[in-house]
Structure formats: structure tokens, C-alpha cells
């Protein structure tokens, strides 16, 4: 098996056992990236020091020094996460030249465990999108079929892992941005419970929804990364003090005693036959592994997208106010035509720096928060959000995890939905509620469509109950044995 076909756990083992050098591993993934990035556009920026850092790890290992559990293994980082000394754009022109002086807590923890940041992955601008078509740095393509979107907003991370340009990537998930691209690209993507992972240093889209998570080839790989990146960070008051379990060690495919709920609203009309077939198969696997299947209801599901877009755009309209061209980032050319006043200065920096989807969402949020509309939109959405969460809490009285499609269809074609924002928003119907309720969720590969496009299965659990969810994913993964499937473009 070639280096790039190994998964994260195998690479970590190989480094620890001195079977492979970090330099060789890093070089293999860099070469693959050099070969495929022109085709897929999965990365915005490569870490020029990756090889140098890999050699440092090798030296350290050779000298017998103690190294972290991820020592020498490259990981791709979504461009939403600040990386000290490496350009961080969030997919936006407004940050085209921004080089942070600090790293996100997630990046600090990964690097602290010895991982090498290989590059910064492409994404929808400020994570606002479900297709990675809104990036200022060009659209990203699905490795399984390059006419299709990789999903979004963490499309670059999903494409990079799927095309073996990195063994693991970090994504962020505000309304499905880890799970949906994982689903579209045939990999595992996990969004931890809101608060598991510090948001410090992650470009904020919607603060009460954003959560970073791993995107990899196996459930075990993702569980390992979650152990590294989770835990309380005093810099983020919304990070939880909850103890971090050893998920990767506790994985089991024996689901005896576990109750899996099927939310009926997630199997409504509109779910394609391909998706239905794959999810049904996953249910059968879980049953065979000992799980009990129960029907549950989440009656407010149909409002999830509306509540999500209200909450997310309101928070975003304020979170993105800091991009003004005063202290960093894009500034319009005022030499050519001077600013009339400060308002003009701001409006031009922001009007030119943000793309159209971001501007649309900023305006939606600005309007929904503005005087006279706050109660009907923002406040009302937050109230419905509580009821929606209660739907889940009630469901979890009857079951341990929920299983559903991650989206109604597999990946769609590039350009197919970009012209109609509302259609694009409705894509997110099965993923947004998880974020609104703060629950952990994941997508695990479940099979392929007739056209050979990957289809994932979504699993959700109660707050901080990631283990149960991971176990179900693990059982499906073991039974299907799809983790070595690679898109044709890889070879």
C-alpha cells in the first residue's frame, strides 16, 4: 500500500515505530497535492515549511526525544482556522493578505501533538455556502466526479482527504459544513457537541453554531483527532469543561442494547432513491450489530432552515463587522479616488472585499436585527430554536442516537444551485438542526449512487454522547469496508 493510501492511524503508527519518516510521508502528500490541486483546487495555500517541519520531527524521533501521538503526520486545515505565519483567508478577498500572528486553539493542539500543517483548504467564503462555489479563490471540485461540487463549506478539506492530498483535514461545521461535504466526498466527518472544541482563533461565522471537527478516512482516525482537539479553553467561554473520553480506544461495533431512532421527518418526500437505499442498508447493518430501531418524531424539522438562517445571518452580520480595512485585510484603492468620509471608506472596503453571498447574508442579518424587526425575526428564531432543541431532547428519551440521511441527494453539479440562494439554503435541511440544538453529528460513508457518487449516512447523539454515535458509525464502516475506495482521479 502506498503512503497516501494509508489512513491517519496507520501513518501515526508507522512514524512511532520508525517504519516511515515524516519527511517521506509529508513529501508523498505534497506531491499528490501538487499533482491534483490544479484539477481540484482543494488548497488555497500550502505550508512552505511543511517539509522542514517534517525533518525536525524526524530529527527529534532519531534523537530519542518523546513526541506526540500525531508526530510527523500532515493534516490539512480549513482556511477558517488561523495559522500563525501562514496566510488565512476564510475564502475571502477581504483577507487576501492576512497573515495571523497566532494560531487557532485547534491548530495549537494538533501541532502540540506533533502534526504538520500541510496547507490551508478551500472553502465557501466565510463558510457561507454548501458547495465551495463561493470561494474567492475559485471553485473546488469533487474528486469522484469533477463536474460535481464537493459540498461545503469545508469542500476543500473533504476533497483533499478524499483525493489523498492529506490523510486528515479539519473542517468547521455551522450548519452541516463538515458532514455534508464528507457525505458528498465519501469520507467520515464529525461535528462534536457545541462546546467540545475551542473556537478560539477560528474565523467566526455564527458563534453559537460554529464547531470544528475532523474529516478523515475512518471513524477511528476522527475519534483520535477529537481526543486531541477537545477540552476546555479559558479563552473561549463557550468551551465546555466536560471531561474528554478516550473515544478511539472505546470504539466497538457491538451495538447491543443501543436504541437507534429514525426521525420520520428526515425520511420525507424529496429524499432520492439512491439515498433511501443507502440509509436503509445502514439501518439493516445496525440492526444486525444488535441495535434496536425505534421511530421518533422531530416535528419542528421543517422550520430548521428558517431558524438556522435567521440565527446564523444575524450573528454573522455582527461577527463580520470587524472586516473594515482599518487594522488588517483588504483596503480599496483610495489613491485613485479618495474616500468622501468614513462611511464611504468602510462601505467601499467591505463592498469590494466581500463576495455576493456574504453580502447577502450580512444584509439578511442586519435587517433581521434592525429596529422594529428584532422581535419577529431574531428573538422569535431563538425561541423556536429552544423548542427545536426540546424536540431532540424528547427524542433522546426514547433512543440513544438518531440515524438519517445527511442530505436528500448526493453531490449536485457545479453551477446547478448557485443562482438560487433559497434552493441552496434548503439543501441544509437535515444538517442545520443539529447545530441549532448543539448536538454532535457525523456523516459516515454508506455507499454510492448509480452514478458512482458517494452517499453518507448521518448519525446524531445527545450532548456529549459522541461515543454512542461513533460506535454506530464504526459498525457501519466495518460492515461496509469502503475505507479503501478511492476516486479515479487519485490513480
Amino acid at each position, binding site marked *: 500500500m502506498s503512503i497516501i493510501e494509508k489512513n491517519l492511524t496507520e501513518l501515526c503508527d508507522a512514524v512511532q515505530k520508525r517504519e516511515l519518516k515524516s519527511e517521506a510521508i509529508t513529501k508523498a502528500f505534497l506531491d499528490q497535492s501538487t499533482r491534483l490541486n490544479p484539477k481540484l483546487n482543494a488548497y488555497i495555500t500550502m505550508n512552505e515549511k511543511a517539509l522542514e517541519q517534517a525533518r525536525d520531527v524526524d530529527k527529534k524521533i532519531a534523537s530519542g526525544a518523546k513526541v506526540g501521538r500525531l508526530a510527523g503526520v500532515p493534516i490539512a486545515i480549513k482556511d477558517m482556522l488561523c495559522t500563525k505565519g501562514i496566510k488565512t483567508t476564510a475564502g475571502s478577498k477581504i483577507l487576501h*493578505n*492576512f497573515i495571523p*500572528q*497566532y494560531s487557532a486553539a485547534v491548530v495549537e493542539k494538533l501541532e502540540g501533538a506533533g502534526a504538520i500543517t500541510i496547507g490551508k483548504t478551500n472553502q465557501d467564503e466565510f463558510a457561507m455556502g454548501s458547495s465551495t462555489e463561493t470561494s474567492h479563490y475559485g471553485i473546488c471540485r469533487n474528486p469522484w466526479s469533477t463536474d460535481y461540487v464537493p459540498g461545503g463549506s469545508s469542500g476543500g478539506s473533504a476533497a483533499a482527504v478524499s483525493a489523498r492530498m492529506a490523510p486528515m483535514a479539519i473542517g468547521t461545521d455551522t450548519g452541516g459544513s463538515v458532514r455534508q461535504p464528507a457525505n458528498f466526498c465519501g469520507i467520515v466527518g464529525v461535528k462534536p*457537541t*457545541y*462546546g467540545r472544541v475551542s473556537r478560539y482563533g477560528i474565523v467566526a461565522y455564527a458563534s*453559537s453554531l460554529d464547531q470544528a471537527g475532523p474529516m478523515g478516512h475512518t471513524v477511528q482516525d476522527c475519534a483520535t483527532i477529537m481526543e486531541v482537539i477537545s477540552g*476546555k479553553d*479559558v*479563552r473561549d*467561554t*463557550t468551551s*465546555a*469543561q466536560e471531561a474528554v473520553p478516550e473515544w478511539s480506544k472505546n470504539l466497538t461495533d457491538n451495538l447491543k442494547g443501543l436504541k437507534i431512532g429514525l426521525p420520520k421527518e428526515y425520511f420525507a418526500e424529496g429524499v432520492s432513491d439512491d439515498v433511501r437505499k443507502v440509509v436503509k442498508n445502514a439501518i439493516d447493518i445496525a440492526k444486525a450489530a444488535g441495535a434496536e430501531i425505534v421511530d421518533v418524531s422531530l416535528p419542528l424539522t421543517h*422550520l430548521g432552515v*428558517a431558524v438556522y438562517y*435567521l440565527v446564523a445571518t444575524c450573528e454573522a*452580520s455582527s461577527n463580520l463587522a470587524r472586516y*473594515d*480595512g*482599518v*487594522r*488588517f*485585510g483588504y*483596503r480599496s484603492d*483610495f489613491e485613485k479616488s479618495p474616500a468622501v*468620509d*468614513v*462611511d*464611504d471608506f468602510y*462601505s*467601499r472596503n*467591505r*463592498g*469590494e472585499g466581500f463576495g455576493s453571498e456574504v*453580502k*447577502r447574508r*450580512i*444584509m*439578511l442579518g*442586519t*435587517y*433581521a436585527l*434592525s429596529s422594529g424587526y428584532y422581535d419577529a425575526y431574531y428573538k*422569535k*428564531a*431563538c*425561541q*423556536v*430554536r*429552544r*423548542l427545536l*432543541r426540546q424536540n431532540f431532547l424528547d427524542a433522546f428519551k426514547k433512543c440513544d442516537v438518531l440515524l438519517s440521511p445527511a442530505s436528500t441527494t448526493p453531490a449536485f453539479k457545479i453551477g446547478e444551485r448557485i443562482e438560487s*440562494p*433559497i434552493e441552496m439554503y434548503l439543501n441544509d435541511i437535515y444538517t442545520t438542526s443539529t*447545530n441549532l440544538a*448543539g*448536538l454532535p453529528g457525523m456523516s459516515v460513508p454508506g455507499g454510492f449512487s448509480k452514478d458512482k457518487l458517494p452517499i453518507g449516512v448521518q448519525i446524531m447523539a445527545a*450532548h456529549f454522547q459522541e461515543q454512542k454515535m461513533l460506535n454506530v458509525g464504526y459498525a457501519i464502516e466495518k460492515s461496509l469496508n469502503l475505507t479503501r475506495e478511492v476516486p479515479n482521479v487519485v490513480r
Partner: protein
Amino acid sequence: MIDVKKVAHLARLAISDDEEKTYKAQMSTIFKHFEEIASVDTKNVEPLITPTDMKLVFREDKREVVLTVEEAMKNAPEKSGNLFKVPPVVG
């Protein structure tokens, strides 16, 4: 009807007349969809902000040097000495 120009000004976004037209149409469609939530009875329901129950932890009042001045100014589009420079602000 949404006054897109006014909203764009409030958000400090320069938009063209064409953009204004497009946004106006799109935003009214989107808000029509959003208005579905009005049908839910939310009497006496506390708005939910942070979805996970967590205990607040304070930061100890301890002084730290986080950035040097050079680091703070490194990304500045325009500066004068170690101050950020912008067009004149009135008031």
C-alpha cells in the same frame, strides 16, 4: 418591501444598482420563507442562544503580553508610526 439601500448602509456595504435589484428580490423571497416561524406559539419561551448547557468560567485578572507592537501592526494596510491610519473621522 425591504429598503435594501438602507440596510446596505447600516451594514456599510457599497452595492451597485444591479446588486440592489437582485438583493431586493432575493431577500423578499428568503424572508417570506423565514416568516414560517411566525406560526409557532412561543409564548413564555426563553430565547436560546448557547445550545449546550455550560458553566461560566472567568478569566483571572492577570496581565500578559500577547502581541508585540510590531506584531499588532504587521497586517495594517496603512499606518503612521505605530498607529493605524484612516481617512479623517469627524467628531
